[in-house]
């Protein structure tokens, strides 16, 4: 059911071809704006037609360049046991915490501006949750710190409190370089040959490669780090209101980004990223978990396979403002799509609320619970002799009580999922307990998870070097207003 090489297909071969053909036409006839001078020069040198800032990408160039991107790669963690394989038939499903929200919330402290302490907490929860195997830096914005250097402290938070692989913060070239320097310290000198971090690049859709993100892309490509090229598409706002047209735009933006990265450094790992949902025309807000959003996740996966690129998509996305029925329904819709798509890398798998504006700790616990379920479902149905259970069926016999069967007792803990969050108490017992809601149970759950957190530690010499670099850099941080 969750075969990563055969995602649930929502596009017929003809439709897939139409999307590809139109993407190529977009690149050749319309082109993209590239607002980064050096990138434009590189593209011109490689034979692309450059007219002012407009670059028209020849399909032969794009399709040839993307060939050098690997279909799978190893993302190294500072703890080698936690390294993951991204893409390919034997690849891991890389699941990460939410990233980017300016707010944090939980039942005890309510909704507040995110702080570095909240960031530390989310990194620790991610590290502690067995189902999450990668940390997204920027789990919540440390709004208590100056913009100019908060990226340094958030990056430190990630590498200090977890030894899992991670995505770097890098929202510009200089910040991306800071992330590379931090990784060099953590990994003891030069990086490579396998990447140690993933950087997320969003073109400024529709069809603009802005200076900042392009600069970050070049920095990561030059440092041979993995690049997740993810157009941020909202049907009706940053993309056509139709899914078909939006998918063609997604392909054009993704493949042009991957081609540019390959031009800079052939063989640098790149992902085909999809963040494609719709605009709610009543509010102008992105709407998550909609039927169109689900179809877009699945179609994106199909296209990524076509281009032999690992796929980033989906996530526990929801528009709901509270951890309520809407949040649960939207998230469940999105996660089904994520897993049926055979997604390789899932950002925002846990903790996303309010369309990504809030990192909710209760939502985090609920999402982890759902993810555990999906991982179990992906394992499928096992058919050992013991599981076919002929002998036990004979022993229990017609009219027998399976509750009393040794077979049941021997295996129920291993074979049946008993959610620590979702109870089955009868109504009266539940009422006697004070009618606990799933959100209250989730509050207790994230606290348990936090209590189970074990500090992976860090070499004191490395830590000292990290702190020295960060403190020195804080004295002369990148100027947010003047970043390329």
């Amino acid at each position, binding site marked *: 059911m969750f075969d990563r090489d055969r995602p649930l297909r929502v596009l017929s071969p003809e439709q897939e071809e139409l999307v590809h053909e139109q993407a190529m036409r977009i690149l050749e006839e319309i082109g993209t704006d590239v607002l980064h001078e050096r990138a434009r020069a590189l593209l011109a040198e490689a034979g692309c037609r450059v007219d002012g800032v407009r670059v028209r990408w020849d399909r032969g160039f794009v399709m040839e360049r993307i060939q050098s991107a690997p279909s799978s790669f190893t993302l190294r963690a500072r703890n080698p046991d936690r390294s993951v394989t991204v893409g390919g038939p034997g690849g891991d499903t890389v699941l990460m915490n939410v990233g980017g929200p300016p707010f944090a919330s939980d039942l005890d402290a309510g909704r507040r501006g995110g702080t570095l302490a909240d960031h530390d907490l989310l990194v620790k929860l991610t590290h502690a949750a067995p189902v999450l195997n990668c940390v997204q830096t920027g789990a919540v914005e440390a709004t208590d710190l100056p913009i100019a250097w908060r990226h340094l402290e958030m990056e430190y938070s990630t590498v200090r409190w977890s030894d899992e692989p991670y995505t770097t913060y890098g929202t510009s070239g200089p910040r991306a370089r800071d992330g590379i320097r931090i990784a060099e310290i953590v990994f003891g000198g030069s990086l490579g040959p396998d990447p140690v971090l993933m950087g997320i690049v969003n073109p400024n859709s529709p069809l603009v490669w802005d200076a900042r993100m392009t600069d970050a892309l070049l920095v990561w490509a030059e440092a041979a780090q993995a690049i997740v090229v993810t157009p941020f598409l909202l049907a009706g706002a940053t993309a056509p209101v139709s899914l078909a047209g939006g998918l063609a735009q997604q392909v054009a933006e993704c493949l042009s980004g991957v081609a540019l990265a390959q031009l800079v450094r052939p063989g640098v790992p790149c992902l085909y990223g999809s963040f494609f949902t719709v605009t709610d025309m009543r509010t102008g807000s992105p709407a998550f978990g909609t039927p169109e959003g689900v179809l877009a996740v699945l179609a994106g996966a199909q296209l990524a396979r076509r281009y032999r690129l690992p796929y980033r998509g989906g996530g526990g996305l929801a528009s709901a403002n509270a951890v309520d029925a809407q949040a649960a329904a939207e998230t469940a819709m999105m996660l089904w799509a994520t897993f049926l798509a055979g997604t390789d890398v899932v950002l925002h798998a846990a903790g996303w609320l309010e369309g990504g504006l809030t990192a909710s700790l209760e939502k985090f616990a609920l999402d982890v619970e759902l993810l555990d379920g999906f991982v179990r479902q992906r394992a499928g149905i096992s058919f050992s002799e013991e599981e076919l259970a002929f002998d036990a069926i004979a022993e229990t016999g017609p009219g027998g*009580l399976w*509750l*009393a*069967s*040794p077979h*049941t*007792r021997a295996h*129920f*803990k291993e074979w049946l999922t008993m959610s620590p969050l979702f109870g089955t108490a*009868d*109504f*009266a*017992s539940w009422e006697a307990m004070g009618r606990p809601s799933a959100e209250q149970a989730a509050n207790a759950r994230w606290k348990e998870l936090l209590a189970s957190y074990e500090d992976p530690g860090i070499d004191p010499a490395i830590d000292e070097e990290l702190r020295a670099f960060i403190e020195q850099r804080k004295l002369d941080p990148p100027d947010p207003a003047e970043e390329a």
Partner: protein
Amino acid sequence: MAHDLEILQQALIAADPGEALAATERLLAAGVAPTTILEEGMAAAMFELGERWKRGEAFLPEVVASAEVFKRCNELVEPALLATRDPDAEANALVVLATVKGDLHDLGKNMVAAMLRTSGFDVLDLGKDVSADRIVEVVREQAPQIVGLSALLTTTVPYQETVIRRLEDAGLRDAVKVMVGGAPVTPEWAERIGADGYANNAPEAVEIARKLVGAPQ
């Protein structure tokens, strides 16, 4: 002796019939009072298991398996108990359980039976799809302290009332307490049909049964 009582408790909690039966035999051979074996070994173990179940540390198949071992140990202890019993002393309270006529859903009733047995009640389980006539006959012959009636279907719940009316017609209603249960059954329904007790779940059924026979809770 204390050591074997401890072994018996642990074996019951682990639902290990070999260990439990061997410990019971050793205790009997050593001349330990059967009431001590029953109360300080077996009942104490089942009480501990029940507490673990309430805390979510033990699970239903484990409780049912331990109840089965408990039953087998009890078969060893009972003859000794009868031999030493003061003829005037009270026997265990007897509970007759049935899933009422028309209903084949006996899982809940079976759970109640297991929990009652491990709490020191004698249980006569009449099974499922049981007619009022059969229940009246058993109440007349066995004189149980309690009759427990289970029903899962909204279409069979009314039969609980039928049974109570038939007990009244037979002049047996005052001789026995009637408990009702089942997912769609409510305390209001129990009161309306004149039942003496209602429980949401198996552990609560044990508490209600204890209350009905005036046992310490």
